[in-house]
């Protein structure tokens, strides 16, 4: 599993690996929001956490379908499938690789981008915490979606249609926890739910993704 | 038979109108599709056995 993870990380950082793309997308989306809703600081700071959460979610979605599609196109997928590594572990390795190359950088980038949206000081730690807890779920759910649509031509659009509804719980609890944290309200419930969904997804979805990969390899 | 619908008459009628239109549309589409495929099936079956 480490071999596949290291290979994917190496591929991502190599030229054309798309490492910086989701970060650039996240920056652009964040910059566009004030153009749309106007520059008033208090509006921006109020909707800031939510905007950053949606931006991170869309940036994650952007880089999902390349995961399995590349291995499918160049014939690596059947070769990996016949290796000692079970497909469930392949799915988990892909999800971890995706999180390290996309989820983690987005979480770290959210703080500086928060400044663009005039976030108050109190909301920064909560924003980063909720993103840190939520982005692994986005990665593993996205990996399941990518496995589901690996064989389909132009599967990228369908992938978004299938995965976005699955993102709703994580988005609601994540953005709500970030918003309440910023306002100093009681945060325990949304935070625990967010963490619970992420852990549940990490534990169960690789098996669903593995089963779906097996079906797509037939 | 009291049919006085009060000031929300247009909303109630529009709700019924759209809903019934959707139901009739769905049923009609399914029914036409059912008949078309059934006819196609019979044509192929006759072709095969004939």
């Amino acid at each position, binding site marked *: 599993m480490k071999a596949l993870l290291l290979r994917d990380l190496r591929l991502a950082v190599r030229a054309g690996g798309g490492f910086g793309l989701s970060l650039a997308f996240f920056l652009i989306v964040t910059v566009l929001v004030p153009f749309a809703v106007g520059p008033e600081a208090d509006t921006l700071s109020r909707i800031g956490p939510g905007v950053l959460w949606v931006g991170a979610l869309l940036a994650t979605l952007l880089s999902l379908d390349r995961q399995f599609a590349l291995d499918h196109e160049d014939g690596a997928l059947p070769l990996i499938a016949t290796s000692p590594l079970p497909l469930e572990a392949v799915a988990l390795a892909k999800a971890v690789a995706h999180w390290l190359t996309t989820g983690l950088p987005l979480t770290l980038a959210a703080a500086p981008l928060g400044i663009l949206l005039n976030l108050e000081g109190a909301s920064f730690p909560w924003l980063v915490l909720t993103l840190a807890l939520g982005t692994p779920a986005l990665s593993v759910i996205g990996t399941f979606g990518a496995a589901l649509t690996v064989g389909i031509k132009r599967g990228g659009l369908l992938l978004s249609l*299938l995965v976005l509804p699955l993102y*709703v719980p994580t988005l609601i609890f994540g953005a709500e926890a970030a918003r309440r944290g910023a306002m100093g309200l009681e945060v325990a419930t949304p935070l625990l739910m967010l963490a619970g969904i992420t852990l549940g997804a990490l534990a169960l979805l690789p098996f669903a993704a593995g089963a779906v990969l097996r*079906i797509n390899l037939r | *038979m009291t049919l006085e619908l009060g000031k929300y008459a247009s909303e109630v009628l529009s709700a019924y109108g759209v809903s019934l239109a959707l139901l009739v549309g769905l049923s009609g589409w399914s029914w036409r599709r059912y008949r078309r495929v059934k006819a196609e099936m019979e044509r192929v079956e006759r072709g095969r056995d004939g």
Partner: protein
Amino acid sequence: MSIWEYANPKKFIATTAPVIPWAFGGAILCIVVGLIWGFFLTPDADRFGSTVKIIYLHVPSAMIAINGWIMMLVASLIWLIRRHHVSALAAKAAAPVGMVMTLIALWTGAVWGQPMWGTWWAWDPRLTSFLILFLFYLGYVALWEAIPDPDQAADLTSVLCLVGSVFALLSRYAVYFWNQGLHQGATLSMDSEQHIADVFWVPLVVCIAGFILLFVALVLMRTGTEIRLRRLRALERQAQRAAA
């Protein structure tokens, strides 16, 4: 003869073909009677004025929307475990029906709440859950259309249905949590019947029966169509192979 006998496509069509017209007729009868009875013969509810009459469309369609998905979930499980083609095709057939029912529930719910909320759409937790359910239906149907091979499509959509169901439940609670802070939901709880005076109750039950019959009729009809389409495809491929 065990129930699995009906899993044989030809027998399924043979046994359901005569049932469809009766179910369809019964559905139309119940819906017409229920609506007329509810529409004309019941007084307006004090707080809602005449919009309460929408209950006769909203509650049945909402129930079918949810139970339709549950039926698809069970059919997907049957397909994954026992590999019966009929159940996979029945799930495929039921999806558009469930989707339309969700659309009706959304539309009637919005119209019903409009006088009390003052806007057409107030992100009420119940209605938002149906909006999310609609997205799940959309994704499910889109996945069926995207995959040419029927078996692969059946497998993938079944897994999507399983995973989707878990997230649909999660979304339902997330939405209830997310919206409690905004404003109190409609006083008349839309889904529970005990709040309704009995004079509304009987026509509502008739409407619900009508919608259930309609759902059954439509699903049986559409499943028959899917089976025949699948048979046409199999015959055609067999002819191709024989010619090759």
